[in-house]
């Protein structure tokens, strides 16, 4: 009997020292104007973990698909170069022949689960290779153990959380005992808890000697890799250890990668180098600025008090408050007033329970919480897509119960997580004018509004473009534009940056902030802590249908116990600040605080 969570790995080819070898790989999609990958070469040793980063469209997923022959077998195009697994070239092999050697986990976890229970799901690939029943039974338990899903054998995969589904997808490829696993943005659609689960598992698999290729936007998650590769326009432009690659902060930003907060702090303090962890960053900073140790002692919150009181940390906030956005305006006449709202889907448990919430004119509110905590359900009540089981929702002082969903469009607009749920028109212009046309506005007025809105979202030069040919970031901005033409006073955005690279996130958030400055109240549902820290003024934390916290962003991030119990990890700059006994929401704030005291 193997130790818990120990998995079997395909024996490495004794004649080859490499797990993966890529030489001169160039691929151009059918009809593509330029290669999606250009002359990519690298070699991965057995047991090595390689992180691949880059902007959307840089060629990361294309590279992943080349490693198991999805390209060129499934996707048509011009393929040149060599891919080797365990020293043997893959040329002429079919995808299903490569599957036992290279396991692939995709971003869309819904699309890679095919069975009605967990054990069946793990067995699926083994059935496809014609494995005997005894062997299948012998492999299912270790695979589920390895991903922490022991005891879930009879569960319906659709009833699992996002993180569990993705872990199940990993178990189902582990069962074939491949020597290499490729994970293509495996946590993009997950909440912070699911994300943490998957990355914990990745580290465990790595410790057990699996060769891993992990594609990711967030550099922090790949800090523990052996090697990092940065792709830009299909070519490798940087390669090396995280210490080497992750200190090139400008390059990372240029390539659409979020640079690690800790390295940003180092750079701003003139320390240089790469921080491997918060502990390491703390030690490095206090070594360089010993005066901080005495400040630390003054600000230190006693461990006994840390769980009950957050005031000390919040009070010790940096002095750069003037750069922060102003607090929310008066809520004496709120734009939205939610009173004692409860809701349950037919035959389901309560999704919302006694929620009270007021949203003022010009507010910028972030709603956070785990998947299934009721965030989207709450937002849908504001625009009237759902009717309360009890309680009421007032919009502009009027009870929503007496209004149809379409009637609220000019008061409150809703942008769905997936822009493709909204877009249907053959051109950008027609898409944007759809809303005003439904309300029978005059042609001149519609044109004026379209001009104004397309300019504000930066799509004024794409009026006649086909929306389906735009990038995902552009499609999301188009989705925002298409509701802005109705000039709503409140804009609700459901995870508006999911799947975006760092540059796209910044562009999207700059747009949202600008809209907020123009007087539109913003409600943003998000899983991304640094977006909350940098952009929102107020946070509502939902848990199991209840509102657990409603207050200023600083108060929220100062409550370490609340964050811990909610599996909501603050940005690293905030965590590092807390080690010094201060509260900083961004690297710049923390550096300002350090410089003032050092």
């Amino acid at each position: 009997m193997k130790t818990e969570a120990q998995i079997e790995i395909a024996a490495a080819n004794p004649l080859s020292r490499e797990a993966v070898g890529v030489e001169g790989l160039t691929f151009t999609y059918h009809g593509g104007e330029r290669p999606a990958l250009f002359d990519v070469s690298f070699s991965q040793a057995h047991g090595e973990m390689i992180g691949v980063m880059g902007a959307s469209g840089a060629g990361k997923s294309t590279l992943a698909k080349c490693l198991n022959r999805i390209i060129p077998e499934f996707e048509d195009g011009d393929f040149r170069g060599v891919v080797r697994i365990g020293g043997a070239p893959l040329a002429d092999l079919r995808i299903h022949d490569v599957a036992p050697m290279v396991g692939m986990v995709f971003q869309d976890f819904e699309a890679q689960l095919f069975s009605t229970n967990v054990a069946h799901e793990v067995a699926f690939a083994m059935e496809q290779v014609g494995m005997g029943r005894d062997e299948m039974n012998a492999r299912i338990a270790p695979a589920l153990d390895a991903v922490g899903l022991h005891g879930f054998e009879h569960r319906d995969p659709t009833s699992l959380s996002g993180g569990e589904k993705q872990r199940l997808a990993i178990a189902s490829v582990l069962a074939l005992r491949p020597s290499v696993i490729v994970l293509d943005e495996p946590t993009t659609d997950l909440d912070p808890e699911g994300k943490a689960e998957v990355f914990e598992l990745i580290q465990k698999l790595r410790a057990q000697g699996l060769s891993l290729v992990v594609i990711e936007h967030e550099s922090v998650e790949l800090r523990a890799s052996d090697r990092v590769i940065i792709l830009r326009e299909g070519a490798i432009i940087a390669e090396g250890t995280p210490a080497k690659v992750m200190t090139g902060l400008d390059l990372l930003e240029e390539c659409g990668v979020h640079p690690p907060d800790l390295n940003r702090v180092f750079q701003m303090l003139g320390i240089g180098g790469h921080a491997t962890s918060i502990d390491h960053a703390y030690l490095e900073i206090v070594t360089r600025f010993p005066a901080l140790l005495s400040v630390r002692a003054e600000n230190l919150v006693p461990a006994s008090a840390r769980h009950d009181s957050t005031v000390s940390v919040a009070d010790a906030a940096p002095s750069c408050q003037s750069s922060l956005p102003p607090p929310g305006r008066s809520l004496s006449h709120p734009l939205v007033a939610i009173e004692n709202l409860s809701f349950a889907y037919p035959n389901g448990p309560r999704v919302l329970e006694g929620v009270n919430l007021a949203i003022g004119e010009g507010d910028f509110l972030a709603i956070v919480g785990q998947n299934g905590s009721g965030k989207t359900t709450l937002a849908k009540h504001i625009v009237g897509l759902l009717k309360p089981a009890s309680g009421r929702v007032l919009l502009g002082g009027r009870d929503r119960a007496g209004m149809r969903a379409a009637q609220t469009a000019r008061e409150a607009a809703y942008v769905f997580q997936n822009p493709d749920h909204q877009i249907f028109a053959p051109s950008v212009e027609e898409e944007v004018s759809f809303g005003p046309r439904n309300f029978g506005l005059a042609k001149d007025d519609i044109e004026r509004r379209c001009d104004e809105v397309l300019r504000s979202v930066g799509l004024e030069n794409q009026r006649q473009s086909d929306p389906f040919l735009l990038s995902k970031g552009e499609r999301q901005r188009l989705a925002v534009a298409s509701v802005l033409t109705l000039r709503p006073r409140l804009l609700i955005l459901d995870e508006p940056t999911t799947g975006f690279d760092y540059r796209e996130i910044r562009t999207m958030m700059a747009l949202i902030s600008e809209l907020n400055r123009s007087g539109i109240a913003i409600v943003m549902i998000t899983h991304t802590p640094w977006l909350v820290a940098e952009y929102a003024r107020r946070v509502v934390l939902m848990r199991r249908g209840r509102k657990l916290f409603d207050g200023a962003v600083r108060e929220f991030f100062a409550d370490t116990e609340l964050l811990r119990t909610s599996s909501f990890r603050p940005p690293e700059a905030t965590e590092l600040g807390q080690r010094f006994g201060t509260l900083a929401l961004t690297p710049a704030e923390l550096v300002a605080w350090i410089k003032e005291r050092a």
Partner: protein
Amino acid sequence: MRTNLYLDRNTFVHRLHPTVKVFALFAMFWSVYWVDYPPALVPLGIFMLCVAQLTGAWPNFYLFRWLFMLTVFTTTLTWMISFRGGAPIVSIPFFHVSRASIEYGLGRGMKLAELIAASVLFLSTTKVEELTIGLRRLGVPYRACFAISLAFRLVPLFVDSALTIVDAQTLRGYDFSKGGFFERIKRYVPVMVPVFMGALRKANNMAMALEARAFGRTSEPTTYIDYPVLGSDVVAFATLLAVGTLYFLIYYTGRGAISLK
């Protein structure tokens, strides 16, 4: 959301061999097909109600209650007033009601209800994997079996996506209930385009994920679950065969038809 109707219970019906379950569905459709006379359909209806009780399938019947009510009610009413046979009880222009038309309308409504009920019972007691195995044992190629079972899984996903899209367009002031029948169908274009695009994308992702899990490596994949043929399967098969034969005999002897006298 739930992506299939299967209800995980450990009942006699759930434990039946997949091939017997597929045959049961066929036997129910076969039996319903041959008879029009409502009293002849009653035993089959009672049989299905008993199976629903035994298998605990009521939640799925509840889920489809509107489909049952709407289709059965409209079918019954439509045939009652449009069937032209038999001595009229009420006869005014465009409106003809006779004993035969009432029986025919009721029969059509019952047939439809029993066809839906048989499908709901089948999906409530059969996993998609069992559907694949059941069809394979009946000689259908594996790829076709898998495609059919996958379709059952995809339909709810597409319905869910379509509902989200309807919400999105409603919030932009679009009124789906405006105009006559054809106008309303036309008004669903803003829904159909994103659903179609989403379906293509989802199908593409699924196909890639399937290939990456070695789908198609062999034309005869093994099965994780062993489905031995038990005595209960033989009894169930024989019973279903008898029911099917009985209903064919009812038809053959003319007792399943509506009398026009």
